[in-house]
């Protein structure tokens, strides 16, 4: 299943709040440490973790910065 879902986080909108990290039941999201143009720490997908495509991260993200790509199988 690994790799089936791609979590695309738009650094243009992300405000680094960490809600997606806290929300993901599979610990898929991690801080990137990099700073966006607005100064925020934007999360990235930890490819070693298994994303189930549950979209909880997308739903919780207040800034609509997350897109979960790939279909659930």
């Amino acid at each position: 299943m690994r790799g089936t879902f791609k979590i695309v986080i738009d650094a243009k909108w992300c405000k680094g709040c960490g809600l997606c990290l806290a929300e993901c039941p599979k610990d898929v999201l991690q801080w990137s440490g990099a700073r966006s143009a607005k100064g925020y720490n934007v999360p990235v997908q930890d490819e070693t973790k298994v994303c189930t495509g549950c979209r909880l991260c997308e739903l919780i993200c207040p800034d609509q910065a997350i897109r979960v790509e790939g279909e659930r199988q």
Partner: protein
Amino acid sequence: MRKEVRVAGFGGQGVILAGVILAQASGAIEGREVAQTQSYGPEARGGAARCDVVISDKRILYPKVRQADLLLAMSQPALAKYAVDLDAAKGKVVIDSTLVNELPDGLPPVYRVPATKIAEEEFKNRIVANMVMLGALARVDDVVAYDSLKRAVAENVAPKFRDLNLAALDRGYQAVEGPGLRPAAGANDAPGAPASGGR
């Protein structure tokens, strides 16, 4: 002599507190005339934050910054936005070199201090980057005495954060680099009280 100082960066970096401390140091401690203003409201959220301090020995009538003598830039967009308002002749820029990488053309002398890096790595508290910047300012220009800044921090920051802020102040004073600096002299922290929103 009128000096116009601008502190600018992202909301949440404690830009306002830095300006307030500077104003207290110059005004309440050193007894000079000061006028401190700031940007407010939604535009101060997440986006740009700005705090201006005008310092003078005479009554300050016009309270706003027209052409800053000193710019403390804590973000790339802040530098880009306010570089144009700088006094090219006698101005100086202090940048948080953790966050500001590109320097536009035609800047007056630039001083660098990795304020955010110092705050995060040495103090485990990003919010004291503002104090690092202030410490740097005291070294870069004589607009305010370093001792006055220390006293202002001690008087205006909650007791439990005092030492942290003083230490950060000191690190800024020590760590800043740039053209023609004299040797350094002597450190401190509080969570900034950002501006209230707008409406």
